[in-house]
């Protein structure tokens, strides 16, 4: 019976000019956005790879220099573009794309593409994810709002119900019918998506992206089922197709437009993040009490000096077999690291709390969990950005240590800053290589969103069965 109903619903949709046209438009938009995503991905990836290579080359060819001068010269780390960002660019355009790795400072990621864009960018981006999250639900609404309400108006609902068709089968049949029609549109899109991915990346990248891609598809499927469930429920309850449509559109507006913005403002108003000047004022306040590698008058430096002198059993810095400045600089770095750990982990917590805070609104808006889940699978969400920042910082600390140790071990305090190293040493310093979060930890961080999507899809289907039971034929 389910099959018959599904088949009837499916055939009817295909015969319906409305479906064909809207589906064609949505498909065309998906195609365009995938094409744009692919182009954007390949261009940005090429630029970033080139920039990373260039940064390394500049570093290796900086000439003879004091290691600490080199530390100030620094290197740049560029956030690599994730392959699935061609489907969901997530936060890519809104967060910094490069970090300057230098002495004394843990720098935030800078150069957000949004700063180089007009206000048009704020209307949203044309990405496959955007279309799946915003337009597909609308398409579902347009297709299903009169699933029951329409049959009620035309009188066929009475006939069907008089046949004694179980309501459960009726709901599942309709769901499958709509889903089948949607898949007609989605399966080609998935194939095109994978082809774009394959074209844009090497084989191993493609293979490692597939599990993420599969999970992403599951997330979207759950999201669509949720909307079908909601649409069927409303259609069963509403008296006329018109009321059904108005209620569903209102839900869509609330879910996709109002609640996300409302939740965002509530989150940013209740969990405050510092502005740039406030952040650095706080850091500097902490730094002031601490060591500064350049300032030998500092109390901490004095203590360090006494400790090191005692360690080598000498009374004057000049008699040390090592260069005290290098030791002092490294001590300064380590003191700074503690301060940065404090302030950056605060900031990280604030950002994540803002995200969790918004996540709770996923209980009333299925858009929020699917957006978060999709971004996470694409590797373009907050967690991935933070992971990149963290690994750059780890790299920075290792590099600073290597430079300071080289400075301390290979010269003495008598040499002062005149000690220099050259290309051979620069080549020995490690290059920055970023390994992204693996699929399971990306999924793990979004388990709440995933559960919400399951709750939405199964919950709404259950409710629609219930509504179908209560449904009246007239």
């Amino acid at each position, binding site marked *: 019976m389910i099959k018959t109903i599904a088949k009837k619903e499916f055939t009817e949709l295909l015969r319906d000019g*409305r479906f064909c046209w*809207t589906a064609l438009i949505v498909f065309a*938009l998906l195609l365009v956005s995938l094409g*744009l995503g692919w182009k954007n991905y390949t261009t*940005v990836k090429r*630029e*970033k790879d080139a920039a990373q290579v*260039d940064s390394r080359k500049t570093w290796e060819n*900086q*000439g003879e*220099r004091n290691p600490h*001068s080199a530390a100030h*010269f620094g290197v*740049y780390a560029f956030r690599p573009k994730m392959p699935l960002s061609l489907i969901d660019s997530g*936060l890519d355009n*809104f*967060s910094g794309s*490069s970090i*300057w790795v230098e002495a004394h*400072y843990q720098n*935030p*990621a*800078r150069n*957000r593409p*949004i*700063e*180089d*864009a*007009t*206000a*048009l*960018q*704020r*209307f949203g*981006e*044309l990405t496959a994810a*955007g279309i799946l999250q915003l337009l597909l639900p*609308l398409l579902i609404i347009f297709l299903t*709002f*009169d699933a029951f309400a329409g049959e009620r108006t035309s009188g066929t609902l009475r006939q069907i119900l008089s046949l004694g068709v179980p309501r459960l089968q009726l709901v599942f049949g309709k769901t499958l019918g709509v889903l089948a029609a949607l898949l007609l549109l989605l399966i080609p899109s998935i194939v095109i998506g994978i082809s774009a991915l394959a074209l844009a990346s090497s084989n191993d990248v493609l293979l490692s992206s597939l599990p993420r891609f599969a999970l992403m598809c599951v997330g979207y499927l759950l999201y669509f089922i949720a909307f079908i469930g909601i649409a069927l429920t409303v259609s069963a309850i509403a008296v006329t*197709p*018109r009321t059904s*449509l108005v209620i569903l559109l209102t839900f869509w*507006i609330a879910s996709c437009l109002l609640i996300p*913005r409302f*939740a*965002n*403002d509530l*989150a*940013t108003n209740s969990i405050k*993040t510092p*502005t*740039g*000047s406030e*952040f*650095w004022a706080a850091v500097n306040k902490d730094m002031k009490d601490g060591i500064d590698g350049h*300032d030998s*008058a500092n109390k901490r430096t004095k203590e360090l000096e006494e400790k090191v002198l005692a360690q080598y059993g000498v009374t004057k810095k000049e008699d040390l077999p090592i260069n005290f400045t290098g030791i002092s600089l490294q001590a300064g770095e380590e003191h700074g690291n503690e301060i940065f750990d404090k302030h950056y982990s605060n900031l990280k917590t604030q*950002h994540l709390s803002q995200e969790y805070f918004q996540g709770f609104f996923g209980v009333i808006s299925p858009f929020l969990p699917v957006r978060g889940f999709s971004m996470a699978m694409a590797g373009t969400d907050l967690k991935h950005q933070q992971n990149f920042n963290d690994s750059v910082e780890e790299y920075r600390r290792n590099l600073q240590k290597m430079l300071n140790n080289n400075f301390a071990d290979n010269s003495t305090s008598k040499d002062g*800053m005149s000690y220099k190293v050259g290309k051979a040493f620069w080549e020995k310093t490690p290059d920055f290589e970023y390994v992204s979060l693996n699929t399971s930890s990306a999924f793990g961080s979004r388990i709440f969103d995933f559960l919400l999507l399951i709750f939405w899809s199964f919950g709404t289907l259950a409710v629609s069965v219930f509504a179908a039971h209560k449904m009246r034929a007239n």
Partner: protein
Amino acid sequence: MFTKIIKNEWRNIFAEKSFLILAIFFSALIFYGIFNGSNWVNNRSQNSQTLTAEHEKNLAEKQEKVRQGVKGSDDENKVVPHPGDPYEFAMNLHYVVLPFTSAAIFAVGQSDVLSNNAGIAVSTLQRTEADKDGFENPLSFLTGKFDLSFVIVYLLPLFVLAMSFNLLSAERENGTLQLLLANPLKLKTLLTAKVTAQFSLILGIVSAVTIIGTLLSVKSFTDDFWLKILLWLILVFAYTAFWFSLAVFVNSFGFSSATNAVVASASWLCLVLILPTLLNVAISAIYPVPPRSEVVSAIRNVKIDMRRDGEKLLSEFYQDHPEMIPKDGKTNTKDFGLAFVYIQREQKKKVEEVENRFAEQLAKQQNLVKNLQFFSPSIITNEALNDIAGTGLERYTNFRSQAKEFDKSWDAYFVPKIFRGETLGVADFDQIPRFKYQEESFASILTRVIYGVLFLLIAAAALMFLAFGKLKNYRLEK
């Protein structure tokens, strides 16, 4: 007859519970938008005020020390710089501030992404904390703010369409249309009267709530504030008119109410959500902004090392710039600080060259936005609202270039003093350049906004005209 229908329509609307709910809800959204916007502006202004006050305090303290005759100390164990040492000014960053206008509470615009503070220092910004910024949550940019501008651009059309999508179709479906037209009444007149009734109601609600919300949240009114409010309301009038005409146009085809609803929401989707994103793609494809990594390369390609190359560079510099030689004629080419200043200036020049290219591309993009905005009424309105609120790209571009000019005068004041080894006297402190943002006139804002408003009105009239043509063939029965 006309006024009778209007009155009757009003009576009908008020009798409907759903309208009251919708109206109250929409008013609440407007209030919330204004509240949220003013919250944002207050927070940001406070930060800016703190920065300006700190800078002034710092200057006053130094001047006072100079007045008292405090000298620095070169003692190795306790280096204290001379309070009038220009090198200290060179190293220290301060911020100049773009003030928010009183109308900024209406539209957050680009003010969340583009900073209202610009760092000023003789050293490059890269060497200061001004360039170590960006602590906002990117998620917040992605979602956007819930300000009045959002309510107007996105939600007002929905409110309008929700009221008017079944202007005629509902009357026809209820069977009242035939009844009405049994009177000596033209369909055109009926439709116009009904639209006028709804239009005046919505506009009344929006204007009243906006003005009340404004009075409650704005603390100080600048001279042209009420002019801006007026312009804002005219814009809202034109935008609302456009959406009503669209509804009339859709109704004139004679579809059922459900089909009208689908068509109306699809047009909203197209004009508000899809077209702007498509245009954005087109615009950034026509004038692509170069990758930011080029700025990075430019900074790094200044391959000088102050420890290694400083002495040579400084002696060359003094040869080229004899006016910078200290009065006693003794140049110190081994001075680490001087070499640093020299290198920073070289890097600044490089960065400026590259950044100008970014600015040029962005200006071209913005120009194109202004030319292509006519494709979507929402783009027109969004751009215009930002312009009126003073949170649009143009004002920020103006601010940036004024800040850059100011930075040059800051350099010009301190750098020669650094190289000549002078210290600042008490009187010199009063000569230190002070920044004040030169606001553009209301007239120039008006010229940016007016074409959009006119276009909206013309488009509305054209849609009405087309609809009236169609109405001749309108079938009164289902």
